[in-house]
């Protein structure tokens, strides 16, 4: 793991900072799926020589950056249906092959957003549980159980201040014990066999976090 150097380590990270932090933890040459939304920002922070290969579940490996004006091809989009581009070394495959690749454990990392993550790595990111919500899961459950490592990117607290890192998810689950690491605006957490370990903090301390979260926290290893 390379040491991260983030612009405002002093304070809460913004989305771009979090994306940069994730990008720096992705090893050279890894095969990675970036979930729809905030995780797609990670691509912008990967160095040009990272050799990281992006997978999109709608059937492409080595997906290129978003298409600029004049590059848009309606036959070439990412999973968020945004036009993307085709670098050298890309390949296309159908949906069953694409999800076989995912479910079969061939992707090194997937990065997803979350509503909640439990202390044991349960993930809730597809359904608010609101009675009138129309359920829609997309590829979230497949991603959650498929990649070798699942990284979550989220703010640590909701806008109303409720922790999103919780003893047990109260929102409907996406996957059980599937999350490996959680990047938040205030800290990075590793879910380990020993428990939830705080590996970095930004403008806060382990003690402060322990006071605001209802989960036991371990200190970073020396």
């Amino acid at each position, binding site marked *: 793991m390379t040491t991260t150097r983030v612009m405002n380590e002093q304070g809460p990270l913004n989305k771009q900072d979090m994306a940069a932090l994730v990008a720096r933890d992705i090893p050279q040459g890894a095969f990675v799926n970036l979930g729809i939304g905030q995780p797609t920002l990670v691509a912008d922070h990967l160095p040009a020589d990272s050799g990281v290969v992006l997978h999109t579940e709608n059937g492409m490996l080595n997906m290129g950056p978003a298409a600029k004006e004049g590059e848009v091809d309606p036959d070439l989009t990412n999973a968020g249906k945004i036009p993307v581009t085709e670098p050298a070394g890309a390949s296309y495959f159908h949906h069953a092959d694409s*999800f076989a690749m995912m479910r079969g454990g061939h992707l090194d990392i997937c990065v997803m957003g979350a509503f909640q993550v439990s202390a044991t790595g349960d993930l809730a990111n597809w359904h608010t549980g609101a009675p009138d919500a129309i359920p829609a899961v997309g590829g979230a459950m497949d991603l959650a159980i498929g990649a070798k490592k699942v990284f979550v990117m989220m703010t640590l607290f909701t806008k109303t201040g409720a922790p999103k890192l919780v003893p047990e998810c109260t929102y409907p689950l996406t*996957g059980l014990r599937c999350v490996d690491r959680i990047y938040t605006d205030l800290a990075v957490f590793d879910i380990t066999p020993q428990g939830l370990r705080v590996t970095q903090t930004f403008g806060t301390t382990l003690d402060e976090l322990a006071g605001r979260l209802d989960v036991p926290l371990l200190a970073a290893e020396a």
Partner: protein
Amino acid sequence: MTTLLCDHADEAVAGIEDGSTVLVGGFGMAGMPVDLIDALIRQGAKDLTVVSNNAGNGDTGLAALLAKGRVRKVICSFPRQADSWVFDDLYRTGRIELEVVPQGNLAERMRAAGAGIGAFFCPTGVGTLLTEGKETREIDGRTYVLEYPIKGDVALIGAHRADRMGNLVYRKTARNFGPVMATAATTVIAQVREIVETGAIDPETVVTPGIYVDRVVKEADRA
């Protein structure tokens, strides 16, 4: 049997029966068989079960089919979108059934239908609402859910090019569900941009062999 080349989308969708399960390809607009959906609306079959990744966008295509009340049930991974108001309204007012299936299970269950697999143990969705009540089993220390095939009476798919034997190639991420759906339905109808002479497609590059394709129609020119 021999693939039928149709002159018009209306000919291609002829005979689709009320109550059919219709697999509809596409992911967003990529690979969406727009002409065939429009023809299906004109054709009039009703009480349909539609299997597709989404449940219609805006007021055209699948959304228009839904708006006409022809669809009893949607099986899809992601019905809720910014512009899925037609589905949203039907669902909230109890006029349409919904089965939400994780996207990979949707693909794999159709693949199973096409490959003669009776059921399969799948790790996706274990412990979630979407697998509640389904049979589970622990295999080599991991928990799996038993999933059953999704078979179509009809598949409507969009491809890039066909030869006269019905061999299909797709283009970029418009490939998506087409090749899988082509294996999973009794009658497979493909709309393509171009029909070429047999022999004009390199055999190494065929994605859907003609055996899976019953009818082909060239898509209408767009203004």
